[in-house]
């Protein structure tokens, strides 16, 4: 691991002032792991754990504001979140392990990096190492014709097929979260749909953060009256494993018809995958199996599977159908 200097920021201003020197660290569950693998090599770490960003607050409009330092376990077990944003609680509790959830933060989870084995290989993107355009743009992508059973089928490019690993972000995509950031140029908000970037020909750029910007809060709008939300995650084993396919659905059914629906998928996309196509197939229709299947077909219509991950197309469809059934039951 490369040597780094360490600073503990005692205020937001001080954290932002130190940002140019290196990286922010909160829970460290991704960053420390990747530093050990030489994937991340910051010259300095700015510890933000003392910042007052660890609260979950109710907003006047009925939504909630989640501080960037709220730990995954605290968010998942928050009574209001369990009650009104069940999909988020379920997604968080399906991710990682209890120890990691005690460490991992809301802001850090938004910035979680891919589990692509080539990306995580210490020498990837260096001469003699595997090609990884995320590590070193232009070095190629070893996953395209390598081991890619767990890789993405939606939002891929010829430069990168790495899956976005987060469960939390999938739930937040269905909940239409708004991310607050603060940086050298001041404060701004970013809708979650615009926060994560498709790889395109710049897979090294993963999100909309500008240099030196820090995630401060995530706002969730007030839940739609009478709606219900569910997260379903399919994986190789029943716990402590990343999704092969997952779905987050928020739905409101009245008189057998779907009045409101938001659909997002995990384990299949290069970013948390909101499916406007599925929502269009569902909205106003009757809540039945045939419609759910049609929505699933629409959600995966643009899928570009490769040799080893072609199974994900049908798996993701069935995952979505099952989740829609649970959310509208």
């Amino acid at each position: 691991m490369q040597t780094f200097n360490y600073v503990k920021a005692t205020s937001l201003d001080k954290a932002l002032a130190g940002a140019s020197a290196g990286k922010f660290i909160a829970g460290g569950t991704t960053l420390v792991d990747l530093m050990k693998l030489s994937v991340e090599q910051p010259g300095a770490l700015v510890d933000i754990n003392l910042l007052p960003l660890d609260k979950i607050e109710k907003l006047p409009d009925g939504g909630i504001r989640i501080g960037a330092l709220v730990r995954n376990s605290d968010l998942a077990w928050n009574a209001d979140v369990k009650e009104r944003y069940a999909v988020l609680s379920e997604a968080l509790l399906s991710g990682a392990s209890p120890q990691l959830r005690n460490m991992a933060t809301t802001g850090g989870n938004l910035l979680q990096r891919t589990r692509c084995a080539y990306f995580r290989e210490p020498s990837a993107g260096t001469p003699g190492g595997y090609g990884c355009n995320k590590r070193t743009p232009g070095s190629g992508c070893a996953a395209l014709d390598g081991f890619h059973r767990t890789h993405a089928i939606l939002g891929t490019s010829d430069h990168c097929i790495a899956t976005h690993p987060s469960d939390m972000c999938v739930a937040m995509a269905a909940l239409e979260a708004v991310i607050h950031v603060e940086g050298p140029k001041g404060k701004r908000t970013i809708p979650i749909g615009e926060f994560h970037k498709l790889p395109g020909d710049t897979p090294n750029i993963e999100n909309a953060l500008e240099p030196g910007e820090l995630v401060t809060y995530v706002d969730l709008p007030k839940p739609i009256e009478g709606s219900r939300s569910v997260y379903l995650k399919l994986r190789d084993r029943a716990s402590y494993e990343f999704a092969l396919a997952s779905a987050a659905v928020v739905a409101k059914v009245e008189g057998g018809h779907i009045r409101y629906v938001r659909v997002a998928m995990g384990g299949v996309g290069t970013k948390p995958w909101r499916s406007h196509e599925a929502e269009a197939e569902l909205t106003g229709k009757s809540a039945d199996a045939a419609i759910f299947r049609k929505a699933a077909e629409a959600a995966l219509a643009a899928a570009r599977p490769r040799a080893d991950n072609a199974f994900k197309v049908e798996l993701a469809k069935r995952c979505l159908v099952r989740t829609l059934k649970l959310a509208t039951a």
Partner: protein
Amino acid sequence: MADTADLHLKHLRSQSPAQELAPDQQTLELEPLDGADAATKGGRFSRRSFLSGLGATGLLAGAAPLAAAAPAIEPVADESTDTAGSATVTLRINGKDYTLRGLDTRATLLDTLRERVHLTGTKKGCDHGQCGACTVHVNGRRVNSCLSFAVMHEGDEITTIEGLGQPDNLHPMQAAFVEHDGYQCGYCTSGQIMSAVALLKEPIGPTDEDIKSAMAGNICRCGAYTNIVAAVRQVRA
């Protein structure tokens, strides 16, 4: 594989006895010298300093120093000074303050506990937050000590397996693991017990499935899972 093993043995044989090291060269330097000095202050030995000194002292030392090994060493500061990439940090571990000078900022909490403070009950398995062997409590919550830098923990209350109970005064969870044989090789056990104690305060459900799910962050390669669940169930009851 037999070929490889044989070659390996030949390789070893070729070094012995002609190239045997002089007794004073045989000490395994597992610890910084200052740590070894610290371990002998006041006539006390840590088990590690004793074992790493075996090469020099041979087996003549017998079992006597082992009997004296149980008390933890006194917190001591070493004399290195801070430079870029290092820091002085005071960690509160099991209710005791340890001031660590010249601590490399890269040192994880796990490595610091084991190599600097010589609390070796916390184990290093995968070193990437995947196995749970390194589980300790920070401010009462279980975390993977391998994925945290020690410098980040000034002011935190850190509890390791050594702070939970002692051989003559076991924590109920430790006693339950003994009673239910919740281990085979024992390497994952301290992490399993730290997790099991932490889950007692977590809002999980009452069933065995809930226990299994709450223990999912601790891998047992020997497969003692059934007995671990039995031990946790007994303490929860």
